[in-house]
């Protein structure tokens, strides 16, 4: 067990190392003159970053630099689409789309001679006046990294680096200088709301669990089940900064009087699970988890529980049922977990990102946090940008940023000069935001009032080629698959709703079906047991609200305006434009195209599979959908 004095010593020893890793960072007493930070998050790992790190180490050794240059495998930097990525300090040179073959050159030029190899840098960081750090790019500049502050900066497998960034200071402060009430007040005043979807005020949640007889067994849980399609902010925190979650959970344990925590993490996050296990062992070794932390008499330990891949297990009561060893199904509330949660005992559950904010709030104060964001949604939020957007990745921005800013500036706009149509937030529980709300500040309440929700922070951008009925169908297919099946409205209702949508996209629906659809949506929304069912109709209702004409086009005109719904489009060749090259015919998998060389070709709509290959192949733009 380390004492608070020892914690300070470790901090002092390591702070120079981590402080070096920023623009104009000071080397101080740090041993290495150069730090190479290779992203070892899931995205970059799958594009081969670990091999690149190995190769770097090998080449650095060969060049005799191992005492001068260190290679650090970090968590995610956010720009996953550019992976593998790597940053070299002190230059803050941001290399992207790394390939194994680039490594020797980077080592010999950059690390040996000190010349940044600009051709391998992320091009936005290369300007006429030299290179800029990635923090100056459009993608990073508007960001404000609180929850992600250590992701991509520290070695997540080294507790010393975490301590070097001020890690476990908040726990020390709480245990030695603050009462339980002080802590809750600080969290409440900060205005922090749960980042897992519901946006429930965190301070209030803790307060509910504080009461009761002394000595009652209580639990603190972390929801790391992250199931929203496309969302990966929690994974990034776990992979890049696992200790922050432990520290925050221990603080909560002190507040509510719990000595045991559980992290429920999806088994499909093997890297996160590994890093959590490594971090757990180190935290226990240092005694920042375990008995009598810092000699204060407070004890708290954490265990991992692996989820088996059901979206519904992210729902709080299902998660607890699953930890208890039963089939992960939600249970009715009340009783709420703060009263009767895990194993029937008072429990609090928070999301990974929520936890990641806590230590900073304790150290920097409630006012600092409340100074960011909007009136009712304080702080920052991490979003996973995806869909039709240039910069696919993870961004942490202050609450209240507009969708326009996110899409056009941070996201770098929409590829191929296409027009923005809508953005989906909140995953399968959320809804679509259309152009008319492009400038609404994004926060919890605004999103709800326009028919969507924050959810865990997935943000999928759609352009003019996307059919909104098809999008609604996509999300509903997910919910139908993921409904646990416990309650009637969700189990059967979502399936029937999907059938209705299929009828619409097949061109077989009548106008009355649209009324039936809305009625069914409301039935599911109002009568389902858990929020999965209660929110499942949101994608349908919100697209229907903002794109009603598209639904009507499918039903009345039997047309899909975006040309997405296969059964409502047919492919044709414009005889005027066709030069009879035969490329389309050659590539058609359905043998549906006929025509003599140099003569206009024709598509047999009966044979056509509507795959669209011909259209992509034609060099003369002669093929069109109708």
């Amino acid at each position, binding site marked *: 067990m380390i004492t608070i004095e020892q914690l300070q010593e470790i901090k002092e020893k390591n702070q120079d190392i981590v402080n070096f890793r920023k623009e104009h960072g000071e080397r101080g007493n740090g041993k290495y003159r150069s730090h190479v930070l290779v992203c070892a998050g899931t995205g970059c790992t799958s594009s081969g970053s670990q091999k690149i790190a190995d190769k770097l180490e090998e080449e650095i050794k060969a060049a005799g630099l191992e005492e001068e240059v260190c290679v650090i495998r970090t968590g995610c930097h956010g720009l996953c689409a550019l992976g593998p990525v790597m940053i070299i300090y002190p230059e803050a040179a941001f290399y992207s789309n790394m390939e194994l073959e680039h490594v020797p050159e980077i080592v010999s030029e950059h690390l040996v001679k000190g010349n940044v190899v600009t051709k391998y840098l992320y091009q936005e960081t290369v300007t006429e006046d030299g290179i800029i750090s990635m923090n100056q790019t459009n993608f990073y500049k508007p960001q404000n990294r609180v929850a992600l502050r250590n992701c991509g900066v520290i070695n997540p497998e080294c507790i010393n680096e975490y301590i070097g960034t001020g890690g476990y200071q908040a726990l020390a402060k709480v245990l030695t200088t603050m009462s339980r009430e002080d802590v809750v007040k600080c969290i409440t005043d900060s205005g922090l709301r749960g980042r897992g979807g519901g946006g429930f005020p965190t301070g209030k949640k803790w307060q509910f669990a504080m009461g009761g007889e002394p000595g009652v067994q209580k639990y603190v849980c972390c929801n790391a089940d992250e199931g929203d399609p496309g969302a990966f902010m929690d994974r990034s925190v776990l992979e890049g900064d696992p200790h922050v979650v432990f520290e925050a959970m221990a603080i909560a344990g002190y507040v509510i009087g719990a000595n045991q925590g559980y992290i429920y993490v999806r088994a499909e996050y093997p890297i996160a699970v590994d890093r959590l296990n490594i971090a757990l062992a180190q935290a226990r070794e240092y005694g920042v988890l375990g008995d009598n932390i810092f000699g204060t008499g407070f004890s708290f330990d954490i265990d991992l529980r692996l989820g088996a891949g059901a979206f519904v297990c992210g729902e709080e009561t299902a998660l607890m049922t699953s930890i208890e060893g039963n089939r992960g199904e939600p249970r009715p509330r*009340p*009783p709420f977990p703060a009263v009767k949660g895990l194993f029937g005992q008072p429990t609090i559950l928070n999301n990974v990102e929520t936890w990641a904010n806590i230590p900073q709030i304790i150290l920097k104060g409630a006012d600092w946090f409340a100074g960011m964001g909007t009136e009712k949604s304080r702080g920052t939020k991490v979003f996973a940008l995806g869909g039709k957007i240039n910069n696919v990745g993870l961004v942490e921005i202050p609450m209240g940023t507009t969708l326009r800013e996110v899409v056009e500036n941070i996201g770098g706009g929409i590829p191929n000069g296409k027009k923005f149509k809508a953005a989906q937030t909140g995953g399968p529980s959320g809804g679509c935001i259309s152009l008319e709300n492009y400038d609404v500040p994004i926060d919890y309440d605004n999103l709800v009032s326009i028919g969507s929700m924050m959810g865990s922070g997935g943000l999928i951008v759609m352009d003019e080629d996307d059919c909104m009925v098809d999008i609604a169908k996509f999300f509903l297919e997910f919910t139908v698959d993921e409904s646990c099946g416990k*309650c*009637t409205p969700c189990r059967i209702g*979502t399936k*029937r709703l999907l*059938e209705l949508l299929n009828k619409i996209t097949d061109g077989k629906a009548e106008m009355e079906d649209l009324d039936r659809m809305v009625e069914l949506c409301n039935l599911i929304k109002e*009568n389902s047991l858990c929020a999965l069912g209660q929110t499942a109709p949101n994608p349908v209702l919100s697209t229907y609200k903002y794109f009603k004409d598209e639904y009507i086009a499918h039903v009345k005109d039997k047309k899909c305006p975006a040309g997405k719904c296969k059964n409502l489009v047919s492919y044709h060749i414009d005889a005027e434009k066709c030069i009879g090259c035969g490329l389309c015919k050659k590539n058609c998998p359905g043998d549906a195209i006929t025509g003599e060389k140099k003569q206009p070709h024709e598509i047999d709509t009966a044979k056509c599979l509507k795959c669209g290959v011909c259209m992509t192949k034609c060099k003369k733009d002669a093929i069109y959908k109708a």
Partner: protein
Amino acid sequence: MIKVTIDGITVEVEQGSTILEAAKVAGVEIPTLCYLKDVTPEASCRMCMVEIEGMPKLVTACSFPAADGNVVHTRTERVVKARRGVLELLMSNHKTDCFSCPQNGMCKLQDLCFEYGVKDVPFEGVEKAIDDSNKFFTYDPNLCILCHRCVNTCQKRTCRGSIDTTQRGFKSVISPAFGMDWADSNCESCGNCVQACPTGALTMKKQKTYRHWDVEKVLTTCPHCATGCQYYVYVKDNRVVDVEAADGPSNRGLLCVKGRSASFDFAQCDERITTPLIKDRETGEFREAGWDEALDLVASKFTELKKTYGGQALAGFACSRSTNEDIYMLQKMTRVAFESNNTDNCARV
């Protein structure tokens, strides 16, 4: 105690009571499908929806704790609409073959659909395989509304834990672990799950031999062992055709496999032995005898044994399947006629 008003009737109930329990006190009936008394509420069927003044959402009466001063409405237009919607959904995935369903007339789903005027919902589901492997009962997923009464009964009342939902969402079915056949599982065939089923999804095979309106229900004690479970025997044309567990002090509405499926068929079996048999020493064969002859023989043998070896050489053990009166008489005979205190009953072990 708290005060709750339900459909205009104010009642006092204990703190922690659910709306459903309060309604019961008020004499107001709220329809339920998944609710299982004394077991943590499942709240999955969503039939028991009610409206509480001042609350934006409908709540499930079976799980929602009543609060002092609650004013509850159980029959508003909104409530009825929700219930009908739920029933329509259930029926959209329920094969309506009521004429040939053994549960016809005893089916809670049928009753509720009748009450709420739900009809003409076409069966759009995919037919799922029936599990007919158990010797005593059948599971037809096409009739199952996934209320989990069977599961909760097996897990929390009989404590066997043989069945649960498998698959998920629309594909859910009830089955033993990993979808194995019922017959291959650790199921004891007690049939308590079957009795808990409100529909025709789980039915005793015996149910095919009668219609429930043909039978007379007679409350009695199970003759199989000394536990003394209470049940109703179903009598049709003077024959016992089935039993149903009653809420007796020792069995609380449960039975074991023997009580439910092995305690009455022999009574009306053609092979049943109805006269005493005496073995012929010469041939080794049994022959029919009269009661007097048989009893005289037994009495003479016992008297002989007692004379030769003394009363202590004899003992009398009663079968636990006997009635108390018979057991009393046996020990009396042992003590008075045998002059032995060696007497017991196998139910003691």
